[in-house]
């Protein structure tokens, strides 16, 4: 290699090729970025909700990223919900059946979520107890700020929950 001299012509070729590659890379990066969600979409992806406005035994539905999120303030007879309880007495789950994506209904008298599509059932913790659903209802990434829950950001409580 030491003996081989890069000729002027080769140098110009490499320089031009290299510069063109940088330009192409820049264009591709810009094109990639155009497909990202718009700022307004990203901003709307973070939803704040005050948990204290839910009465004991009551279910509220919050819309988050186009999905319904169930916020249930449990009464003591609904169980402890090992590692799925938020602020001790709340169940916060994405209200989409883990079977085929239908939206389950909360049945107050039986205290279960029942899916109208294929009859899957989840208890008050959102854990699948009957039928085809393969997994418990998903817990959305959240952060707690006092009694307010921030959906779409991950706080220490969420990370702890995901680990254990």
């Amino acid at each position, binding site marked *: 290699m030491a003996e081989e001299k890069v000729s002027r012509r080769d140098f110009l070729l490499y320089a031009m090729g290299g510069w063109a590659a940088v330009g192409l890379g820049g264009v591709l990066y810009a094109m990639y970025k155009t497909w990202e969600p718009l700022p307004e979409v990203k901003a709307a992806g973070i939803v704040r909700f005050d948990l204290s406005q839910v009465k004991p035994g009551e279910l509220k539905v919050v819309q988050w990223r186009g999905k319904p999120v169930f916020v249930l303030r449990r009464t003591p007879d609904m169980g402890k919900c090992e590692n799925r309880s938020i602020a001790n007495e709340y169940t916060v789950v994405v209200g989409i059946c883990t079977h085929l994506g*239908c939206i389950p209904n909360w049945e107050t008298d039986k205290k279960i979520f029942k899916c109208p599509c294929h009859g899957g059932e989840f208890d008050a913790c959102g854990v699948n107890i009957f039928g085809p659903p393969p997994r418990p209802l998903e817990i959305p990434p959240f952060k707690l700020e006092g009694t307010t829950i921030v959906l779409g950001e991950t706080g220490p409580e969420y990370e702890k929950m995901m680990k254990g």
Partner: protein
Amino acid sequence: MEKKGGLMEWLDKRLAIETLWKVMMAEYYLPKNINFLWSFGVLTMLVFVILVVSGIILLMYYKPDAKMAFDSVNKTIMMDVAFGWVFRHVHAVGASVMFLVLFIHIGRGIYYGSYKAPREVVWITGFILFVLMSATAFTGYLLPWGQMSYWAAQTITTLFAKIPFIGPDLVIWIRGNYIVEDATLTRFFALHVTFLPALILVFTAIHLYAVRIVGSNNEDGIPMTKEEKKKNGIPFWPVFMAKEYFVMSVFLLFFFYLVFFNYKFAMDPINFQPANYLQTPPHIYPEWYFLAFYEVLRGFFFSETLGLIGFVLSMFLPLFLPWLDTSPYPYVSGKHRPLFKIMWWIFVADFIALTILGKLPPTGLFAWLGFVASIVYFLFFASLPIISYIEKKKVASGGGQ
């Protein structure tokens, strides 16, 4: 083209159109031992032209906006625009029929061994065209913004979430939102009407060019030189095309019968409800031409990951046919390969079975049938190296062709 003087000669001096015409049409020879299945290549181009023309008309009234799309199709085009309904049905039926013609064209290529050397490039470009056509159909299906459009797009884009590491972010990037939304609709529209058709044109050109270099295969899969074809064969123009016009006429009768009397098969009733992201239809299924692949996805009902791997493989394995089938038989046609023939017809029956199962609910017996049918789908590809091995031995012992 024979006429001398005037405009043609003027053009010929500047563009050499006479040579071009000879290479592409008048002096491109086909063997005589081909059957009517060889007419389906030109049919795909006919359907493509129908889709482009009807598509351009639809483009003049369609609105690629989540708030306006549904009404622009179901009210403006279907009710207000004079003959708008004709163009919509032609476009929808055309997309469906395109896959029917493609499946026959591809099936003919597999059965008669047209993917084998020296036609690998014809096969690869053909495969790319199939993938591009699938992408065009998929992006186009979202545009009416009905419930089935929406949930098909939602389901299929969700599949990308399973890709390790980048999956969940990739899904959001593809959609431009956390769910399928306005951004998704508009970018699918852009791909559907510009980028994908442009790529289809480019690969069609390479596909046609390649087939003119290596020449058409034939029923018996006999290798023939250009000179042999010139001596014993027929020219593409005018002899082959004269027959093709007849096939086209019969095909168009069938096509317009579907458009005017049986268009409903391409129109799902659920798609006449506007897209609603908070309400999933109880039963989501793709159009009939994707059902077989979709059934492979569902077939491994006990594992989502396996299903997804099977789904991707089922679509991309055909690309590798030339290298899975290394049989040394000089006659490449399945007609003269008994083992291949058996596996081929099992494969065809299985593909039809998968298509039927894809529309049925995936429960009980159907789930197991789907699983078995998915496995059988892969048996064809797995058997090719084995068949090649057996045939190699036969040739070595002086048998075979």
